[in-house]
């Protein structure tokens, strides 16, 4: 590699106090910009689209959601008799793809924050933007927008295809359309955002992903094996508030009649994510980078 000579902008050295500053030293010809959240957002947008893991996780996510969503619709359409689908919500067959796809959203969410700790990039990031809360906020906004948009587009595609394929099922109401597309997409994006926040708290990709997969699956699996009568209430609560069941509430197909209904799952995850976010900001301010 050849050794280039440094080519500094040829500004006349200013040894006197710079305008507006009582300290002597060099004054750059580059215009000084007062940084704000917009700059941090632009930076995080470049970051998220310039690593391959984003394309991989989102690519697999879209494949799972659309692939499984369409396959389920086709399978049901091929096997269902005249009366089988009567009264069924055709949007509900999008559930399986989203449930599997949530693993990808969790992974991408965690990587958005935790990978910076793994690589050491976080020190560069925090030097460029010393306001730590602003960094986390920018990451959260960029990630949430990406996750919501990708989920909404995939969910809409599956919903239109399934409704078209399953002519025997009833026509979903406007409210059901809203919940089955925008509602689940908001829920998925918030689940990913919670993972991002956990990644910032744990600072370790594999650890944070493990925790989030555990949060996703453990309550349901544990409840499955609670045979004792005396644990019935706990079992019921674990079922009802498990993430897969909350996801299915958006299609009005809950495992039980009690527990969260309507838009409840969205308010629950919003509350949990907001609390975790506040905790993450407090920890970020307190800890060394």
């Amino acid at each position, binding site marked *: 590699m050849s050794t280039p000579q440094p080519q500094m902008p040829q500004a006349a050295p200013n040894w006197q106090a710079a305008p507006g500053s009582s300290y002597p030293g060099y004054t750059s010809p580059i215009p000084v*910009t007062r940084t704000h959240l917009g700059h941090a957002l632009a930076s995080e947008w470049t970051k998220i689209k310039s690593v391959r893991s984003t394309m991989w996780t989102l690519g697999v996510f879209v494949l799972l959601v659309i692939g499984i969503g369409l396959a389920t619709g086709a399978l049901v359409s091929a096997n269902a008799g005249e009366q089988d689908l009567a009264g069924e919500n055709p949007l509900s067959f999008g559930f399986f793809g989203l449930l599997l796809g949530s693993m990808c959203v969790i992974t991408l969410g965690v990587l958005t924050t935790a990978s910076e700790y793994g690589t050491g990039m976080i*020190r560069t990031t925090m030097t460029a933007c010393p306001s730590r809360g602003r960094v986390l906020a920018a990451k959260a906004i960029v990630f949430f927008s990406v996750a919501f948009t990708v989920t909404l587009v995939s969910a809409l595609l599956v919903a239109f295809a399934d409704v078209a394929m399953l002519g025997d099922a009833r026509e979903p109401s406007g409210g059901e359309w809203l919940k089955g597309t925008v509602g689940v997409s908001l829920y998925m994006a918030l689940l990913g955002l919670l993972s991002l926040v956990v990644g910032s708290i744990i600072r370790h990709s594999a650890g944070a992903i493990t925790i989030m997969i555990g949060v996703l699956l453990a309550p349901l699996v544990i409840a499955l094996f609670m045979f004792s009568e005396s644990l019935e209430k706990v079992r019921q609560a674990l079922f009802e508030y498990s993430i897969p069941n909350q996801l299915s509430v958006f299609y009005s197909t809950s495992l039980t009649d009690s527990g969260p209904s309507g838009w409840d799952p969205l308010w629950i995850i919003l509350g949990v994510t907001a609390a975790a976010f506040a905790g993450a900001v407090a920890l970020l301010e307190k800890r060394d980078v």
Partner: protein
Amino acid sequence: MIELEGLTKRYGEKVAVNNLTFTVRPGMVTGFLGPNGAGKSTTMRMMLGLDRPTAGHVRIDGKRYEQLKDPLTYMGALLDAKAMHGGRSAYNHLLCLAQSNGIARKRVDEVLDTVGLTAVARKKAKGFSLGMGQRLGIAGALLGDPRILMFDEPVNGLDPEGIHWIRHLMKSLAAQGRTVFVSSHLMSEMALTADHLVVIGQGRLLADTSMADFIARNSRSYVRIRTPQRERLLDVLHGAGITVVETGNGTLEVDGGKSELIGELAAQHQLVLHELSPQQASLEEAFMQLTAESVEYHAHTDAPAPRPWGDDWKRG
């Protein structure tokens, strides 16, 4: 100008940085010297607001780093060559930094050209050698054309040509009136670049002096003598009023450049000399003497003392 006052960082029982007070001035290269584990990197991280001081404070032209509204255009830093995401290309790494501070996109191409990475700008950083990573880190520091620059061990991993280049770069940056603060554990490197010297050991300030003063004070010249007739030579030299130091393993040392005088005295008394050589103590030796007490990680040439298992990495 960077001002440190009573800066202290404690990790549990261990004091990493102990009550440091010094000022880094504009228009010159200030070398920050200390053995491994002396607290150089911790100090630099506190200057950048990455680590919170246990006590004391750092002021950048009177402000805390967090209060800078335009951090990259005010102060550029190379912390370590690997403080980047390996999956991102050199160009995109610099682009996201530029965007975070509202710096124009064309500046990215300029600094890539300055550090000589234009040809590999679109390559992923994880394929870079240590030297190339170091150059990318330096590009990041120069991005905002800042008035204060900080480099942590910049010559690490660079080839001789690269080392020559970085020396020239630091001097020219300082000549433009910028504040340049460079850490190193190599005295010889600092002797060639720094105008001012701050030496620390085990987190404590050992010296804060101009380079010229340090050289004048610490470059001792002496004469080394070996002779089979040691006792007689000692008598002769004492008789001539010359102070001799016995350094063990059969050699004698005399301060100052008196080799001609000693040779003539030996000839007069018909003494056999096996060696009579003028010596110059290197700055490296002066630095080692200064920090000898405070070197944390000694290499033991004799039998290694048994250490509890895991002691090493716990301190890392």
